[in-house]
């Protein structure tokens, strides 16, 4: 019995030592939630609102409301007024909820981070809207170059300009623009 008591004491001591060591080695690699932490949607994990934006980043404007990528979404959604519809898509295992707000001519998508929603993208759905530089669905490659220049990458008919923490992607089909999308990106991406 006494022998068992000694073993138990040694075990407890080892346990305490381990705790102390592990607490000490700390490090901040997440570990703050059941699911192992990490990004919620695989697209963004480090946005910190407008502070991360660079002055040159792309900005979409609707009825005088500026929509910046990685900006806090709720004030923008409020300023834009009642959407035609909204849809919340919780990710598997409650890693956050993406919101999709549909307005006349565009969709505004958000991603969650630390209980705050941020703008992840603006996708044009018709020619009812245009970029502040005048580009709209149905436009031509010449229109695009006139508005944004030639500093873009192209893959599968999608031309992408990157400025600051934002991208502007313009998709062509049969010589005309079929899709325009503003997209939030991480600064390091």
């Amino acid at each position, binding site marked *: 019995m006494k022998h068992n008591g000694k073993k138990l004491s040694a075990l407890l001591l*080892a346990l305490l030592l*381990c705790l102390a060591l592990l607490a000490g080695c700390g490090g901040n*690699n997440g*570990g703050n939630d059941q*699911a192992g932490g990490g990004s919620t949607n695989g697209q963004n994990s480090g946005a910190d609102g407008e502070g991360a934006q660079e002055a040159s980043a792309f900005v979409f404007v609707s009825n005088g409301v500026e929509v910046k990528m990685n900006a806090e979404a709720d004030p923008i959604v409020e300023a834009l007024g009642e959407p035609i519809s909204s849809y919340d898509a919780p990710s*598997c*295992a409650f890693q956050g909820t993406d919101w999709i707000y549909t307005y006349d001519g565009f969709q505004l998508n958000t991603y969650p981070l630390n209980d705050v929603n941020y703008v992840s993208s603006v996708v044009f759905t018709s020619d009812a809207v245009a970029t502040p530089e005048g580009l709209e669905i149905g436009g031509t490659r010449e229109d695009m170059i006139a508005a944004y220049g030639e500093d873009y990458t192209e893959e599968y008919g999608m031309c992408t300009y990157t400025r600051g923490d934002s991208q502007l992607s313009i998709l062509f089909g049969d010589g005309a623009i*079929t899709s325009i999308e503003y997209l939030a990106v991480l600064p390091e991406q």
Partner: protein
Amino acid sequence: MKRICKWGGIALIWAGAFFLLQALLVPKYMDGIPDGALVREYYRETTEHDVIFIGDCEVYENFSPVTLWENYGITSYVRGSPQQLIWHSYYTLKDTLERETPQAVVFNVLSMQYSEPQSEAYNRMALDDLPLSVNKIQAVLASKMEDETLLSYIFPLFRYHSRWSELTASDFRYLFYQDALSHNGFLMRADVRPVTTIPEPKKLANYQFADVCYEYLDKIRLLCEEEGVELILIKAPSLYPHWYEEWDRQMVDYAGEHGLTYINFLDRIDEVGLDFSTDTYDQGLHLNLSGAEKLSDYFGAILRDAGIPDRREDEALSAVWAEKCEAYHAQAEAQYAELAEKGYLTRATTPGSQIPAGE
């Protein structure tokens, strides 16, 4: 000899302390995120299964093994995990086929759209509870994000050590044993949140599935062939995220090329009898209990016609499944009663609810 015993004893004590700490600090997924518990629950099964489902939430929320048993005598298990990517599915299947040989494997093809790991959280929920083996190591190497380490999957304590300050009573309560939260891998939700709108899908620049996804789909197919297991490809009838025509065509072509069955249940919503004003709990992302039972009943007939046997005459199996059915119906009744009383589900009846019990 005495010296060896002494040092051996010390080593044992340290190892014991290490594993005890690890057991304490790893997430148990008992509060609010039952999806994380799905992988470990499979290893408690005492009988084999004729059908194994692999895939993401579109399998573990949409197919009910108990319905397959009750209506067709089909034994099945859903080996799903949240956002299970195709390499997760392959290694999960490999692990499964080392333990049993089902007659059919059903793979949900939604994950064909992802060519890269998406998040550590989903990797953890897919891989942490796979038993340590060469297979697990290969799975981790195929899945890990840039800043993740293999060692932290072998010894999760290295990942979760900082949870010590966030431990709750639940971590101590479920230190050695966690309750079963699923019904053979199926997570039950009886509440209803109807579809009122579905966002318009955006146009993509490239609809072609990535080579790496085809590589793993081939591996899944070849593994099934080697084991003499029929592979059935499905697309569950979840309305969001959007499943593009261009994607569907690729799966039709792949199935045709390799003589596989591919069923896109989105094309059979009426035949299945799904009503998205009553059969979903989250606006069409997943089916609720009534939807999952309708889909399972429909699919059960297909499986039966494909030759999956009715095992209800097997007394030993029937006894095991009787217990499963009892637990399933008890939870269903509890959820319906809570819905009738409160209008919503809490964790008292539904581990996946974000509303704590008693609220």
